[in-house]
């Protein structure tokens, strides 16, 4: 691993500790406050890390998330961000270094895409088990083989049960906001969990959108300096994630399960606080789009929801009573909120954008989660899995219309035709 120290002009390294910004950084953020910038998702994530004033960045290049690290490296080179920028020898080391930094009390930022995410797999449980709230910014990429730069959610979803908070952003603005929000939730002493802020590769990461730039004061108010209650300290020695006796395993896992559930009220609280500080109110967990009188609904996550809204509007013009429930968080899974959102519908199609090979629906990963949540709903709708948007393909409005047709048939028939449909491969 190489630690990159960027020298200030004159060769003197400024002594800025955590919680401080460089003069150039202050000036830059002052200039940005109140403006609206055109940024793609990667740049939005990098700006969020700049505003969050991260202390340690660990990087390893892989498309499409690389642009996040490119932007951050530029910030450091320009002297507007004072952070340790560590270029690791692979994603496992990258996550390990971020873990170590977080354990010492640094606000750590890392990220990856596709097989990079899976290469680091060992570290996910270790980091959440040690309760170190670092942030990983993922821009989705299809897992190999074959080599495919296109977006597919499987990379991040593979890690969904490892104890990380996880949610998809659908636009660069939401990516920016979610990064700040996720840090605030994860670092909350009631939670202390690492976070994955995920965006679709290319559809979000590489397509520009308008992003409102806040002031540094706004961010510092919402996200105070990181305070780990139990940092590694040579004067106060303690162990993170030590070897344990088998009997000590269950209580530790229970603690982690509690933390994940306790995150639910904290997410609501922080989302509302975010709205007060920044003026943008997001739904806590589920975006409900034209669901009030809907008979059928699409459940979706991430960037394809933008196309989905357009398709719903067209279908509504044709008289189809359809709506959309977009999941803003996958972990913790918002079972209550989803039941509430879908309380009136009779058939639900889950757009997967992921692979759940051999799973309960033989389709994707999300439908089983949605089905389990809806099993306890009084309306208990028919649910099917739509395999769409794989390999980085778009999901055009025509496909959404096709899905709506299948859901309509399910309502008429009183049951789904199949547990999973491969959209584009069936009549």
């Amino acid at each position, binding site marked *: 691993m190489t630690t990159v120290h960027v020298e200030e002009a004159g060769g003197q390294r400024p*002594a*800025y*500790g*955590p*919680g*401080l910004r460089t003069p150039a950084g202050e000036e830059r953020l002052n200039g940005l406050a109140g403006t609206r910038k055109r940024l793609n998702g990667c740049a939005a994530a990098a700006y969020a890390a700049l505003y969050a004033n991260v202390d340690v960045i660990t990087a390893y290049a892989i498309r499409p998330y690389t642009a996040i690290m490119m932007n951050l490296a530029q910030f450091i080179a320009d002297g507007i961000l004072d952070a340790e920028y560590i270029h690791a020898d692979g994603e496992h080391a990258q996550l390990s270094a971020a873990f170590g930094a977080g354990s010492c*009390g640094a606000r750590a930022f890392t990220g990856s895409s596709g097989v990079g995410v899976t290469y680091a797999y060992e570290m996910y449980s270790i980091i959440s*088990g*040690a*309760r170190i709230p670092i942030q990983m910014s993922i821009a989705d990429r299809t897992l190999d083989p074959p080599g495919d730069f296109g977006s597919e959610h499987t990379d991040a979803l593979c890690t969904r049960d490892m104890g990380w908070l996880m949610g998809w952003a659908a636009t660069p603005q939401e990516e920016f906001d979610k990064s700040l929000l996720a840090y605030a939730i994860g670092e909350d*002493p*009631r*939670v*202390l969990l690492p976070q994955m802020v995920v965006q679709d590769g290319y559809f979000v990461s590489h397509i520009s959108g308008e992003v409102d730039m806040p002031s540094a004061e706004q961010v510092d108010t919402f996200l105070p*300096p*990181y*305070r*780990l*209650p*139990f*940092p590694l*300290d*040579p*004067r*106060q*020695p*303690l*162990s*993170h*994630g*030590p*070897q*344990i*006796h088998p*009997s*000590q395993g*269950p*209580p*530790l896992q*229970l*603690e*982690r*399960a*509690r*933390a994940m*559930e*306790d995150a639910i*009220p904290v997410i*609501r*609280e922080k989302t509302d606080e975010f709205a007060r500080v920044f003026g943008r109110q997001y739904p806590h967990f589920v975006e409900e789009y034209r669901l009030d009188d809907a008979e059928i609904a699409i459940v979706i996550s991430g960037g394809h929801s933008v196309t989905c809204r357009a398709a719903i509007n067209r279908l509504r013009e044709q008289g189809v009573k359809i709506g959309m429930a977009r999941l803003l968080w996958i972990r913790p899974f918002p079972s209550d909120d989803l039941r509430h959102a879908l309380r009136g519908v009779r058939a639900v199609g889950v757009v997967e954008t992921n692979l759940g090979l051999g799973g309960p629906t033989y389709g994707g990963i999300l439908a089983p989660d949605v089905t389990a949540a809806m099993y306890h709903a009084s309306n208990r709708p028919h649910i099917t899995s739509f395999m769409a948007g794989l390999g980085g393909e778009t999901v055009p409005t025509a496909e959404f219309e096709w899905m709506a047709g299948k859901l309509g048939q399910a309502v008429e028939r009183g049951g789904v035709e199949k547990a999973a449909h491969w959209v584009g491969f069936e009549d």
Partner: protein
Amino acid sequence: MSVRGTRIPPHLQLPIAGVTPPPTEKEGQRLFPTGNFRFFRPVYKDKTPPCNNACPTGEQIQKYLDFVKHERYLDGYLTIMEDNPMPSVTGRVCYHPCETACNRAEHDEPIGIRSVERFLGDYGLDLPEEPIKDTLPPLNGTTVAIVGSGPAGLAAAYHLRRRGYSSVIFEALDKPGGMLRAGIPHWHLPEEVLDAEIAKLLSLGGIEIRTSTRAGQDISWDGLRNYAAAFLALGQDVGKRLPVEGIQSRGVGGGLEFLRETGLGRPVKVGREVLVIGGGNTASDAARSAIRLGGGAATIVSLESEEELLIVAEDLEQAREEGVLFSPGTSLVRVLSENGHVTGAVLCDARLARDDNSAVRPELIPGTEREVVCDTILVAIGQVQQLDWLPEHLSDSSGIITADEHGRVEGNILVGGDVMRGPSMVVDALGDGKRAARDIDRLLTAQALTPEPDVTIMPYEGLNSAYFRHAPRIEAPLSPAAERSRSQKVEVTLAYSEEQAVAEADRCMSCGVCNGCDNCYIVCPDVSVLRDARENGHYSIRTTYCKGCLVCVQECPTGCLEKVPEMDFDAPEDVTRMETAFAPYDGAHAEQSAFTKQLIEDTIAEYDAARRQPVPGGGPPPNGHPPNGRPQNVKPQNLRNEDHDGGRP
């Protein structure tokens, strides 16, 4: 909420989830007694280094080399003095079986142990007061008789004194020292060094040497038996005769007798064409002394072939440098004389053969006889002792006093040195004296004599040789051959400088003996190697936590750490049942810990400095730590271990 109503029983509660007291603290070990994962346990078991084992006096060589390495010369000198009373002597004349056995020979070259020993011995002689005096017990009133003031006799007297006994030594010659004076030339062992070593021993009190007192003449066998105990160490100082024609001619003499007269400073005449008959070290010493005395030529005529010569390698090389000639594989057939004085010799090619009693029997090669001119012949073909004053059953025809395996002749009378084992090394005699003193003490205190305990010798293969950089041996400097071969006084082998002694001692690999290098302490991935007392290098294993990965055993340079199956311990369910650390050589260890100590201090200083940086608004520094570096007692609410209500907003 699925976790509503969950409860963690008190005995399973951790202070903070996933964060525990470290295993360096008792509480951490109580939580995680992972010692029961272990199949093998690392155990510190010091072995005997081969040098120590090879030394007949049992000198703790690893220990004093370690002292010298750390410039603790007084400690090093006192360490030698536990086993050997005259390191200045052995540091010059010993044939160093320790260096022959040294494992470092397999690595690059053996350690120059003898030269370091000489350095320490001379250091001791230079001290204004003999420091060993303060360690001696008061005399107990018992006096032991010793026959012979050679190395065996003097060593016995010294070690008896260390045990509280007085001794009286009967010496046949008019000066003490035995073979050290009467057999070893001054250019090997200067007279003043020997005198100083003997004076050092006499200064301890309780040791009396009666010179010109010959056993059998001036003190009888019965006279010896009147003492509480006696030690026979009269050596073998009578040269063997060679039964050839003309051997009675003037100019023909014994090599040993020649060396004795020279050593005692008596006038000796030697010619300019000298033949020395014999293939051992006495022949070499006689030939070299003859060159010094007569200024002529000396030829060693030996039955032994070039390869069979018994002269130690370094002496052989020095002899050649000084101009000694060799005629190996040759037998003296006849001495030629005129008017009763030797004028030459008839030599013949021969092979060394032995009869059934393993006595030497030359096998002449017919037709190779030839005459050579010479004016002196010195015979050095072995030695015997005059023992007809002893009861007949106590000696054999070769001048050896017979004894049991403990060197016990009869009653409280023991024997040692050359008169017990035949011609041997000075250090053998010193070892016999040490052993005899111990056994006499046992006999006088009604203890049984026991065989020497078995020891485990550390082989080179047991070391982790990757840790030892190759470094050439520092050879002891020599006087120039042209200068030394003209004088009886100029020492051939010279001393190490202090720097050389320290550098050579630093080459010691401490075979099988912990030298406190801290490797185990540093490599242990589980903080399970403890250094309870940093200053003496003792370690112990935290058996409640060590999982038996054995990285420490693998990375132990000296091989003193070994793996022992857990099943070998008496109570398999108990992981704290054996004290694992022991190092028999107290205090000789662990000067290298300063680096580790500094490393930790530097880390803490750097950490503290990072926290002293200013924070805007004068508030507390980040991470919730006040400036003194102690974390605030911040406890996340959901991590408390009381019942989980699950009902928080």
